[in-house]
């Protein structure tokens, strides 16, 4: 082990001995690293892939996961389904909460540093409307219960509000709300009305 890593490990251990909650979190994370290896066995895994909590991975195509991707656990399992001939790509440092369902029949690409909240569904096929590749940019935040429909492209840095159903392309830097999702520029979101 390189020197810096050893010192960091000792620091973590010391803190774990002092703080029981931290120790529990550390143990859960370590278990998550270990579980991720058999769970994502057929996939192209990056480093430090972590999967705490129940998950289902059905990979019959090509699943590419970046470094430091984390699937947080919860009471409802998440699932990653990749059909034959499909590509499912998840960028580095993306995090996923419980109950997330990502299904690729052709192509689903999620950029780096995305935050995908609980019960989000991302699929590129399966509804009666259309099929088409789904591309989610970098630094996108999908809040609880968001639904990304097939053929949709979400721009970098955008926020998909809770419960939003995204059926059209979302430009970068906007907040998308509602069903069907309408968007407003992020700088304007949450501002009090003038006067």
């Amino acid at each position, binding site marked *: 082990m390189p020197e810096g890593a050893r010192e960091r490990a000792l620091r973590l251990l010391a803190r774990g001995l002092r703080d029981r*909650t931290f120790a529990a979190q550390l143990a859960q994370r370590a278990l998550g690293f270990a579980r991720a290896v058999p769970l994502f066995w057929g996939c192209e895994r990056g480093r430090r892939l972590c999967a705490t909590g129940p998950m289902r991975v059905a990979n019959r195509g090509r699943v590419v996961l970046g470094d430091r991707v984390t699937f947080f656990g*919860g*009471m*409802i399992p998440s699932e990653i389904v990749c059909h034959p001939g499909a590509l499912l790509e998840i960028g580095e440092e993306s995090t996923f909460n419980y109950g997330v369902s990502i299904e690729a029949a052709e192509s689903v690409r999620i950029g780096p540093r995305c*935050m995908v909240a*609980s*019960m989000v569904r991302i699929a590129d096929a399966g509804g009666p409307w259309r099929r088409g590749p789904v591309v989610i940019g970098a*630094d996108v*935040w999908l*809040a*609880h*219960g968001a639904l990304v429909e097939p053929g949709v492209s979400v721009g970098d840095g955008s*926020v998909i*509000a*809770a*419960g939003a159903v995204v059926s059209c392309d979302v430009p970068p830097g906007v*907040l998308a709300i509602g*069903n069907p999702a309408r968007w407003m520029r*992020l*700088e304007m*979101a*949450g501002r009090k009305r003038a006067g």
Partner: protein
Amino acid sequence: MIATALEWWTRLRLWRCAAVGAAPRLWGRVWIHGGGWVFVGDGVELDGRFAPIELHAEPGGAIVLGDGVRIESGASIEAQQRVILEAGCRVGRFAKILDNHFHPVRGRRAERPASVPVRLRAYSELGPRAIVLPGADIGEGARVGAGVVVSRRVRRGAVLGNSHPPPSFVAGEGHA
């Protein structure tokens, strides 16, 4: 005797709650975690048979379930500060109640914004997959429909959500 054994078993499964009232009913799984306080009133029904119910109160936070509250499978309540369900509230399947967005819309996403307490007043109902966001105050007897997102005050007795099908669908006909 069986009834008391069942209640004893229910109270055992609710051991993480700070206080549990009379005659609690619990089916299936409830996941109570986070270190905060969960107060359960009299006659509360928690039906976690189809999917577990989550009651997550962070340290310093509190979830208060009033008398006769009924929570369906898969529902999740997360309190960083305060989530109060008054008497007779019903929470539908897979509904979500949050009192903190956890991330700001603008600014650094890693910084947790302030919590805003959430209150469901007496006999209000949340439909399945409804989402209640920080600052929501659902009035007495209000009914929130399936999948509706609430983030503000809801007038007492209001009915939110679609109760009629859209006009392009005619009952009895299929569509291509």
